[in-house]
């Protein structure tokens, strides 16, 4: 009895619902059409002169405290300096990238689309030729094709990773000294996916470690783990924990959100009394996250790259092709204390800096750096930095995985020159 009533009732609901849905769709369509007709002339007429740029993050999106946040920073700087309009977008998935690019390019709304990250490469390759009127800037990757409407901006990651390698080995030695441990100095890295930018980091970091070994005469044991993901912090934690169990003292984070898990592994390791270890951040200054245990970060100035791309458009100096940024151009490096403070302030503004002020972060980082990075290590760093800046040595950039494997194998044997395209280390 009750059941029959229910069935009739639900049938009535569904009919009503269907009609309602159809009406709603028609209304929405009408409103959308009206808006499209009325809005278009204003954007085309009045604001057309203002340069519009869209920054498209990779699937990680903002909040990695690293790569994508830096892109935002560079675009914001350009917005302030050039008075342009900037929009930010994050694709939902890899499959979403091509449709999004096609939609944006065919809308002719933006003078420049900035694509942040390696994962855009394929999508750009599929769309760039179809929209010759649309300028694209691909950050941190290259399609391998030169197009007049496309600029690829790459970093010479090896250069900053090499400096970090020296510092990591130096800090690890100091930590082992403090704990009274003997044996080889152990450093490691938690990496994301096995992709070309990370090959370069690997080569540079390993080069730095072996450079330290050669100059200081102390053996360095080197660990490198690909977690295969940029978005799973639990994996990063696991990889880091594993290496810490192996006696690794300094870990370098190269995996976006995944290496945030590495930070937490290092923090827990210290706080729960298993020993003392440090983490090193990358891209943005990440010291503020735990200044006691993250004393230094490598800088990959995605902001400089984004800014450079926008500047080319604003100044009308657009030229398709590949640009690389290194130590010399300020595209990579090590974050100085001012940078550390600036990021701490940013974290403070977004209520993420709990129980500390930006000044305290600055002070802690300063004292930890003074204590654990001795002068002779800085001297080594500056020596190598000079050689790189004045072009005395140039790193190889592997084209294939085989070449990359070969370079790493040679470096592990202590053959520093295997990583160099130009110059020699004696």
């Amino acid at each position: 009895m009750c059941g029959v009533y229910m069935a009739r009732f639900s049938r009535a609901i569904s009919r009503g619902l269907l009609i309602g849905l159809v009406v709603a769709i028609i209304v929405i369509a009408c409103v959308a059409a009206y808006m499209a007709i009325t809005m278009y002339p204003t954007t085309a007429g009045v604001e057309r002169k203002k340069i519009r740029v869209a920054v498209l993050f990779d699937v990680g999106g903002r909040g990695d405290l690293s790569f994508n946040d830096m892109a935002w920073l560079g675009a914001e700087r350009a917005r302030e300096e050039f008075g342009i309009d900037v929009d930010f977008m994050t694709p939902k998935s890899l499959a979403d990238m091509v449709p999004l690019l096609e939609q944006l390019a065919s809308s002719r709304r933006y003078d420049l689309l900035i694509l942040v990250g390696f994962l855009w490469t394929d999508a750009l390759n599929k769309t760039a030729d179809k929209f010759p009127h649309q300028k694209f800037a691909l950050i941190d990757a290259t399609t391998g094709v030169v197009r007049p409407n496309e600029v690829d901006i790459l970093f010479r990651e090896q250069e900053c990773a090499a400096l970090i390698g020296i510092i990591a080995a130096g800090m690890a030695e100091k930590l082992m000294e403090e704990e009274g441990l003997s044996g080889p100095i152990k450093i490691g890295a938690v990496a994301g996916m096995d992709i070309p930018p990370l090959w370069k980091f690997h080569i540079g970091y390993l080069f730095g470690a072996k450079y330290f070994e050669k100059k200081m005469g102390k053996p360095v044991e080197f660990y490198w783990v690909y977690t295969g993901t940029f978005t799973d912090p639990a994996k990063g934690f696991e990889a880091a924990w594993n290496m810490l169990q192996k006696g690794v003292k300094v870990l370098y984070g190269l995996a976006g959100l995944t290496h945030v898990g590495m930070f937490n592994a290092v923090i827990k390791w210290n706080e729960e009394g298993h020993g003392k270890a440090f983490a090193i951040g990358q891209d943005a200054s990440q010291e503020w996250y735990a200044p006691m245990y993250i004393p230094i970060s490598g800088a990959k100035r995605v902001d400089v790259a984004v800014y450079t791309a926008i500047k080319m458009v604003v100044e009308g100096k657009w030229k398709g092709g590949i640009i690389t940024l290194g130590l010399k151009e300020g595209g990579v490096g090590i974050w100085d204390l001012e940078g550390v403070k600036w990021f701490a302030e940013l974290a403070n503004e977004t209520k993420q800096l709990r129980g500390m002020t930006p000044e305290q972060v600055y002070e802690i980082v300063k004292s930890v750096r003074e204590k654990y990075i001795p002068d002779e290590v800085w001297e080594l760093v500056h020596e190598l930095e000079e050689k790189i800046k004045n072009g005395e040595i140039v790193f190889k950039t592997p084209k294939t995985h085989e070449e990359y494997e070969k370079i790493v194998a040679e470096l592990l044997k202590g053959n520093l020159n295997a990583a160099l395209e130009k110059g020699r280390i004696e």
Partner: protein
Amino acid sequence: MIYILTTFINALNFMVPILLASIGEILTERSGIVNIGIEGILNLSAFTSAVAAFTTGNPFLGFVVGIATGALLGLVHGVLSTYLRGDQIIIGIGVNIVSYSIGVLGLIALWKQHGASPRIPSLPLISISEGLSISLLALVSPILAIAVWWFLTKTDIGLKIRACGEDPRAAEAMGIKVFRMQVMATVLGAMLSGVAGSYLVLGIVSQFVRGIAAGRGFIALANVAFSGWNPLIAILGAYIFGFLDALAISLQIAIGAIALAYPLRMIPYIGTLAIVSMFRWRARAPRYLGKPYIKE
């Protein structure tokens, strides 16, 4: 040798979220309701527990909130798929999408971040020996699995729940309130997933990240089928999944050859395939699984 031992112990921490979600899902599916929204429950309870723990500074309160979130999502799923006769698969997909999105929007609203929360106070790990730590839940979750097994097979309510999954019509004839049982089983199951979600944030990572479940909810679904709807075998299944994950990492560290990085990372997936196809427990799905029960 010692290193192999550490891998076995590290795997326990990996096992926890998969195990909790699996036994929750077994409980739910035994009542005839399929809830493929556990990935979403993991994500949302991880988020709410992160917010609670961040604002109060108390990780235990975070767990309570995470469990409550699970219960709420379970209630929604249960009511929609029984009294309102919704398609259970579609509801599950809906929960997955909505939960993920709430996490993303919440991050933006609270911390102006699109990917990760700030650091969140978490539970301390239990130290076994130098450098070896496991989470408290690594010990508790197998006990919970045994409790669920006992509940399902040895208690009256457990029998009633199973009756609803096998033949709701007969159960109804015996005076069991089928819908009420199914909703209860769904809520309880979702609460266990809520614990799993909270654990991801408060147990290990100390941070909420967009999509933190990273497919663990779906692995749990696979584990349910693998275990033949038996919580005791689910412990084994979850441990194997956790172990293969840990093994992929520790082998990479031990061998150190980057040429092998890809093949080594395939271990969890190939291993899963091999194990699932090798073992055949004499079990079948609850007969009325996933079919909406329509009262006469």
